[in-house]
């Protein structure tokens, strides 16, 4: 069939005039053929560009999950090496960024507590303002996720923020009489830099946990490191004092910086997206918001430290006994977290999650014993049991959170969930204290809210909870099935 001729088309196209010199000579003379070849080139290059257009990584993850496959496919050998590296980095990082906060190791250097006239409300307000940046982690995460230059240089950004915070810790050594607005500015600067470092560390944790399938163990380590730092802070603060405190904090940050420089890959991912796109991804991540709701229901109402301290006072428990109770609770928490690190590889979240929620509700109800006479032994038993139960649900929820964060925005997803967690705790303390409810009512409310979380659990996608850590998803749980349907099936 001859090619159909159109107005302006060549009557003897170059490609039909043969090859070599004849075609070359024809092209040289024929404007129409040169133009047609140019357009064909555009079509060919356009098609090649369309072939190489990037595919969103979360699309593959979702397709794998929907088809009942492991997402992403695990490479156990690389996973073990990656896990060891991530465990070391996250462990050191969480301890350093927690202990080096200005209100942890040497609060008297910055806080208004050094002023004799400072009230409790004034001190609380001061630290709330100084710690503002810890609530703005999603903003830092959004900046990272939408800025290719920052994201691909995340190690450099992490080192700069950790180094900057360490340098700020040197200021109280160089200027021992730092006070007022200057002290506050230094404390705010430290928190801003540490919050940025923590955001990068958290996003890296999510990336690695999803890549090597270690959400349970990495989540457990995260929680354990945070608890160890919480326990060590007052002891370290007492031991180091005002003079050595800053040096210890700077040393911790230096250790973290060196660890990060050695273990964190120097070039980060390059997948910047527009702010609108990231917000859209986050808002459409239904699983993430379900986990956020679980955090609000389970973690939020269980924070009633101030009311508990008052009850312990009423039962005649001394400050030293309260400190011992705290240690007992923390020891039980660490024990529970260690058990979870082993358990998560043999039991799936579909069992751990309801069990943890019910155990947490039961453990909380034990506080009703404060309504009657209660000695130190009874209070210690409550702390031990509740420590075990509460830690189990916290670390299970953290495991779930790591799985639920969209792989396309790990930094933002992690920061949002941590902010929800922190805000839920803070809001609960304030609300419970201001509602003038009896202690028994608060305890009952907390337990009821925890049980209500089961209603959210049954709506979770089976793809999130139907497998043990590092295990491929069972095929029966892949097809967009909810937990309740999967449980029945």
């Amino acid at each position, binding site marked *: *069939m001859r*090619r*159909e001729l*159109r107005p*302006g*088309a060549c009557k003897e196209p170059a*490609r039909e005039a043969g090859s070599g010199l004849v075609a070359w000579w024809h092209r040289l003379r024929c*404007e129409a053929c*040169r*133009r*047609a*070849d*140019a*357009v*064909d*080139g*555009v*079509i*060919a*290059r*356009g*098609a*090649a*560009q*369309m*072939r190489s*257009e990037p*595919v*969103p990584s979360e*699309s*593959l993850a*979702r*397709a*794998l999950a*929907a*088809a*009942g*496959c*492991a*997402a992403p*496919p695990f490479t156990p050998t690389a996973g073990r090496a990656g896990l060891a590296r991530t465990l070391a980095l996250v462990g050191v990082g969480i301890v350093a960024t927690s202990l080096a906060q200005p209100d942890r190791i040497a609060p008297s250097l910055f806080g208004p507590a050094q002023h004799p006239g400072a009230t409790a409300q004034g001190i609380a307000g001061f630290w709330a303002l100084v710690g503002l940046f810890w609530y703005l982690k999603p903003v830092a995460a959004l900046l990272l996720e939408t800025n290719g230059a920052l994201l691909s240089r995340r190690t450099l950004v992490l080192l700069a923020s950790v180094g900057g915070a360490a340098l700020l810790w040197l200021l109280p050594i160089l200027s021992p009489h730092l006070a007022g607005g200057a002290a506050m500015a230094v404390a705010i600067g430290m928190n801003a830099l540490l919050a940025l470092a923590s955001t990068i560390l958290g996003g890296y944790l999510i990336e690695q946990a999803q890549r090597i399938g270690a959400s349970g163990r990495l989540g457990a380590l995260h929680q354990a490191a945070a608890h160890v730092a919480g326990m060590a802070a007052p002891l370290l603060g007492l031991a180091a004092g005002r003079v050595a405190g800053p040096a210890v904090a700077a040393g911790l940050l230096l250790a973290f910086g060196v660890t990060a420089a050695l273990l964190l890959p120097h070039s980060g991912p390059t997948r910047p997206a*527009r702010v609108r*796109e990231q917000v859209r991804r986050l808002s459409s991540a239904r699983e993430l918001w379900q986990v956020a709701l679980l955090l609000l229901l389970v973690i939020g109402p269980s924070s009633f430290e101030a009311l508990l301290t008052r009850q312990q006072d009423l039962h005649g428990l001394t400050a030293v006994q309260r400190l011992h109770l705290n240690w007992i609770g923390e020891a039980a928490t660490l024990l529970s977290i260690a058990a979870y690190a082993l358990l998560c590889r043999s039991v799936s979240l579909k069992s751990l999650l309801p069990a943890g929620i019910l155990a947490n509700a039961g453990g909380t109800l034990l506080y009703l014993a404060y309504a009657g006479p209660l000695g130190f032994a009874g209070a210690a038993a409550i702390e031990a049991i509740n420590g075990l139960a509460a830690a189990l649900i916290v670390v299970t929820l953290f495991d779930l959170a790591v799985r639920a964060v969209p792989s396309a925005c790990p930094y933002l997803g992690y920061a949002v969930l941590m902010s929800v967690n922190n805000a839920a705790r803070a809001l609960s303390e304030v609300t419970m204290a201001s509602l003038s409810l009896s202690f028994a009512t608060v305890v009952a409310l907390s337990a009821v809210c925890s049980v209500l979380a089961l209603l959210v659990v049954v709506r979770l996608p089976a793809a999130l909870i139907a497998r043990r850590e590092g295990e*491929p998803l069972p*095929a029966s749980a*892949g*097809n*967009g099935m909810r937990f309740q349907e999967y449980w029945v099936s």
Partner: protein
Amino acid sequence: MDDSEWVRRILAGDEQERSRFVTALHGPIYRWLRHLTGSEDAANELTQETFVEALQAIHRYEGRASLSTWAHRVAYFRYTHWLRERSRDRKLRAPLSDAESRPDPAANANWESFCLRQALAQLTDEHRDTFVLHHVQQLSVLEVAEVLGVPPGTVQSRLFHARRRLRDLLGDSPGSTLSGASGPSAPAPENTNIHEVVIR
């Protein structure tokens, strides 16, 4: 490993092969569905449905075509079903028009694909689907025929008309997309298989 062996392993319950099937074919299927639907969300949804359906029906794979072609056919079924459910056919099939589809004017890297997509939007559905399968998805004429369920001659005819129309749109007609952007001195095509579709 040939496709039949691959399918046998998937049917035997090999989870790794199952994952490999989705991972290997996800990119081409997703891109194709994005070209067809003009929407990332719809492409995501249809890609998931395609793999769910493909893995459920993989026992029906007879080995007449490659597994990739067979997956494309499943995707095309899903797409036509999706299309039937929507009455706003033409509107939905418009090219991506939001900011994310536009090439960065400063970096001219994706200019040609942008122009091509604009021109493809003006073709008939049949011509566009055939052209994209052959030139973007790089399926042979026989494979395209298998996916679309039409004779190979029809595919060749559609490719010829699609390319002729694209030439008109991209270069020949006054005020066309590429007028002034690509002149006679533009470099020769890198991918010469574009010329194979001319019916001899």
